[in-house]
């Protein structure tokens, strides 16, 4: 039973990351592709959908992440493992704050322009490129913590 719960928590943690990283990567890819063509409708409508999904998935990540930490009986902060975890937690904190800015900016773009013009494409590209990069670093840190 505790086994099953633990596997479920881990699975949810991975699926949460799939939503966060897969979504950010997709929006980034579409914004890059559209930037060359001209239009930004696809990127914009995907971005708005992503922001909704993002905060749901982030909640799942936080709660399953902490749950994992508890179930593992994490080593202390003075160990090598603990240092990496501290780095990861700090990066998570920065990432969450940055994502708040990103979502608020997206909501502003949606509100101000009925249909976002091509002027917002560079912003999409930068914002989702940075989000993707930060999440990639977090995945690497998570793998190091899980198996390193």
């Amino acid at each position: 039973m505790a086994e099953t719960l633990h596997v479920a928590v881990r699975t949810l943690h991975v699926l949460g990351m799939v939503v966060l990283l897969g979504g950010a990567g997709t929006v980034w890819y579409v914004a890059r592709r559209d930037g060359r063509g001209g239009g930004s409708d696809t990127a914009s409508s995907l971005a708005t959908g992503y922001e909704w999904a993002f905060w749901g998935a982030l909640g799942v990540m936080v709660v399953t992440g902490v749950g994992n930490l508890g179930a593992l009986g994490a080593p202390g902060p003075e160990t090598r493992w603990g240092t990496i975890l501290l780095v990861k937690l700090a990066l998570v904190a920065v990432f969450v704050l940055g994502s708040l800015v990103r979502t608020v900016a997206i909501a502003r773009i949606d509100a101000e322009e009925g249909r976002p013009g091509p002027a917002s494409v560079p912003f999409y590209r930068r914002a989702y490129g940075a989000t993707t990069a930060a999440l990639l670093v977090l995945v690497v840190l998570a793998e190091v913590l899980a198996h390193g």
Partner: protein
Amino acid sequence: MAEADRRLLVWTLASFHVAGLTVGFVLPAYASGGLSDVLPEFGTVLGFLGYAYLWVLSFLATRWVLTDEVLEATLVGAVRPVILRGSAGGGLVGLATLLGPLLLLTIQDLLSGPSNPAGIALILAIGSGIATVVGLAFGLVFTLLDLTAVRIAGRAVPDGAGTEQTKTEATVKSPADSESVGERR
């Protein structure tokens, strides 16, 4: 702002408050070495329920804080309304965070008649006061964080989405806005 965007903001800020609070607790708690002892005893399911409870409280409070008027006022640069309301919302969340679980734990005792009503009422009053003040403080901190994010986002968005411009555009464009947003979702 169109209704759809307000809903996205409420959803985002409510989620951010709980996630930020959790990370903001776990980080120093782990760094100080105390978390490793406390966390395993907490229980996964209990942790999930607690998080969900906090999220619902945060959602209700954020929605209450972020009325159309407060949002409009904030976007044109007035910070007083949102800070006042945000702190008050935080206080309510703090109070509910204490009372909800407490009620759940003591419901049986309360129904069977408490042994010392006056003593319990006193302890409850003191506890509620502390919880409200702590909630107020957190509400203030998170409102300031939210405001900072709004400021930075305003600068990050292209074609200088200034505050005055926002006001007029939001007023003029409002119907077209909500139409196209609704169409896209």
